[in-house]
């Protein structure tokens, strides 16, 4: 390819966030091109646990998560596909009385901030929501959340974006990013792309993209581990976690159990390679069995992980570049960005198109990582 593709907006990264922002930008009448070095949804967005969770989010993320939840409820209207979304309760069980205190403190904090979607429930209510749960639980915290099919969701956003005129070039890695007057010129293996605006949705690779435009972003690539079991008779129709031990547990429509729990595998972002570490996953298996004794009958079918971007404060970077008016970021979702896909895309498109920054994304500016000058060097120490 020798000719240059020119667009209003160039998006780097064809995960859920890149596709969602592209879709909403196209709806606003912009011409959009998405550059994806692998395939759409190949990384975090297609391999995650599918949790559409608001429960227990950092308070700064709650307004954005709430907006996203409203969008999930009418996801078919956005992408003409139900994305396998199911609205179900998300329950965090307390395994001891200390846990109950932790949950009660959380509810108090939420109330103070004006949020009431997280509710403390007692042991009986947990048992009626989760008949198969370990009867020793003390109680729990519940909110009205849900889950969806990650790969299908990302594919649906990409399909809809294409229908709206977005060009998505896969197997196309943005290698060199240069400022060219008022526009950005991105060189890929087989061609050049020019955009009036640039959006960095490069997930675990976003640090390198930020670096090229002069922004500092301490992105750490991680590989959260997941297990899926063989099919079992339906026994759980909530998404379940625990107060203290990391767990994300759900039963899919086909009867399989999808289980994660913040345990990490090994990752190499240069080769896209992730390795499952069973000495880590055994802890996840243990927690799942403690919470649901019936899991001692489960058979593990497959384990996998995906490549995700983690920030030091576990919050995403969403907003305008520190250095350039026409560069934007949406990355670093720190293992909980699937739920945020619809709302983030919508608000980022709005920001790019109108310059209006919605209050929901206010807390996530990249400035919080701006490189401080190193005084020790100045002083010659």
């Amino acid at each position: 390819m020798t000719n240059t593709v020119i667009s209003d907006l160039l998006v780097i990264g064809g995960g859920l966030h890149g596709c969602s922002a592209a879709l909403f930008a196209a709806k606003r009448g912009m011409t959009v091109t998405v550059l994806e070095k692998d395939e759409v949804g190949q990384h975090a967005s297609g391999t995650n646990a599918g949790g559409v969770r608001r429960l227990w989010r950092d308070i700064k993320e709650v307004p954005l998560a709430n907006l996203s939840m409203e969008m999930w409820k009418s996801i078919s209207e956005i992408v003409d596909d139900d994305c396998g979304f199911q609205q179900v309760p998300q329950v965090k069980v307390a395994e001891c009385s200390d846990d109950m205190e932790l949950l009660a403190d959380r509810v108090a904090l939420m109330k103070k901030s004006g949020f009431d979607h997280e509710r403390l429930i007692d042991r009986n209510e947990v048992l009626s929501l989760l008949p198969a749960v370990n009867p020793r639980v003390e109680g729990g915290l519940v909110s009205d959340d849900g889950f969806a099919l990650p790969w299908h969701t990302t594919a649906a956003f990409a399909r809809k974006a294409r229908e709206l005129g977005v060009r998505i070039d896969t197997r196309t890695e943005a290698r060199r990013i240069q400022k060219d007057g008022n526009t950005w010129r991105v060189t890929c293996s087989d061609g050049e792309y020019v955009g009036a605006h640039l959006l960095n949705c490069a997930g675990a690779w976003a640090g390198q993209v930020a670096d090229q435009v002069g922004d500092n972003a301490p992105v750490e690539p991680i590989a959260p581990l997941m297990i899926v079991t063989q099919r079992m008779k339906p026994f759980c129709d909530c998404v379940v976690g625990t107060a203290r031990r990391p767990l994300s547990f759900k039963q899919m429509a086909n009867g399989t159990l999808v289980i994660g729990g913040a345990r990490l595998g090994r990752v190499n972002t240069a080769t896209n390679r992730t390795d499952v570490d069973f000495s880590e996953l055994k802890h996840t298996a243990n927690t799942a069995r403690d919470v649901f004794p019936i899991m001692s009958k489960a058979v593990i079918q497959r384990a996998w992980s995906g490549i995700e971007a983690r920030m030091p404060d576990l919050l995403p970077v969403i907003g305008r570049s520190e250095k350039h008016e026409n560069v934007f970021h949406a990355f670093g979702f720190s293992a909980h960005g699937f739920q945020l896909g619809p709302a983030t895309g919508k608000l980022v498109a709005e920001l790019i198109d109108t310059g209006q920054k919605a209050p929901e994304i206010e807390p996530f500016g990249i400035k919080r990582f701006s490189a401080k000058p190193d005084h020790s060097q100045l002083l010659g120490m």
Partner: protein
Amino acid sequence: MSSVDLGIVGAGPAGLAAAVEARSAGHSVALLDEAAHPGGQIYRNIDHAGAKQFELLGPDYAYGKALTKAFGKSGCSYLPKSSVWHVEQRDTGFRLSYSRDGRSHGVDVGSLIIATGALERPMPLPGWTLPGVTTAGAIQILLKASATVADDLVLVGSGPLLILLAAQLVTSGYPPRAIVETVPLKNYVRALPRVPFNASGLGYLYKGSKLLARVARAGVPIFRDARDIVIEGTKRVEAVSFRSKGRAHRVETMSVGLHHGVVPNQQITRLMRCEHVWDQRQHAFLPILTEDGETSVHGLFVAGDGGGIRGAHSAEIAGRLAALKVIERMTGESQAAVKSLRKKLKRDASVRPFLEALYPPFSEALVPSDDTLVCRCEEVTAGQIRDAVRDTASEANQVKSFLRTGMGPCQGRVCGLAVTELIAEASGRSRNDVGYFRIRPPLKPLSLNELADYETEAQ
């Protein structure tokens, strides 16, 4: 966690020969296999076989006795009934995780020889998932274990194993009701110039012709050049219908044995991300190997049919060769036998071009009709796969994400090659570009209890 110089997975001729070789040089060896006894597919159960089985299975089977005997005396640490569910690279070599009697264990090995052999090529024909349909390999396992089989079996397909099985069934007193052979007549013409005119090659052909003669003498009808094959039935198999030499036939039966060749078992080499390449003659992916069987991953070897289908004798030679390479690495001394083994391996393979030309996979099963099931676990048809390709998926892993093919209990062991084939057909891309499923651990279904109780570092 115990540790040894060399780990071997698979107790067939390749694995056993490798173990004996490495032990005779004094290295510590652990050999793991799912079966309860050594022997692999070909010499399955040989240490416990009765006179009846030996008579039935013939001298090629009895040959294995010497191998298992040498293995028994070798001092190799043998782990039967052990199913390897994960292999990881470590600084010092590899770690194998395996399940035995409901508990998981680990063993660290310096070098690793994969000798897990071949799998039968799936044969997705209309009706192939009906109860009563099995494979030639499964029938042979029955013969070796108990010497009993169904008495109205119709064998469908082609290849040396099918003929061998038919002959063994004749000897057992349960001759098959019919053989529906899928070899197009033109293949005989194509194979003729590839007849191997050397002692080893002619020896194989002579054996084959004797088997065929035995089947013919027993009066088993052979329908040649069969096509348009449909396995009929509602709740189970009732009949096989097909055309042979232009005429329509229908053979009633309750049991069908399918077979159209075997392909390398690539689960471990794929898990380890060894490089593979499509081999048009074997019509399968093969791991890329050095002359002595080393993969693209340093210290990881493949011996036997897992590296390309060459049969039991070659497997034994390749096992020894790989072990000698491992010994060379460990001792730093070159091994005198290497050269002659390489030569032997070449000679033994001389019959392959003939067999490959005569018995390629059956085209109707390679690219099945739209409504034929391809992935049994997730119930995906050939038509759905073609639709997915039309919907922009043009790689095996995209189709997997899209349709869940290969995500079920068999992990793609059954449908993997069929999916690659269908995508290649529908997209016009090469099989190397279409690729193969990414293999995820555990390689075998693993109980959650086992994982939860798996002590990886302590002990």
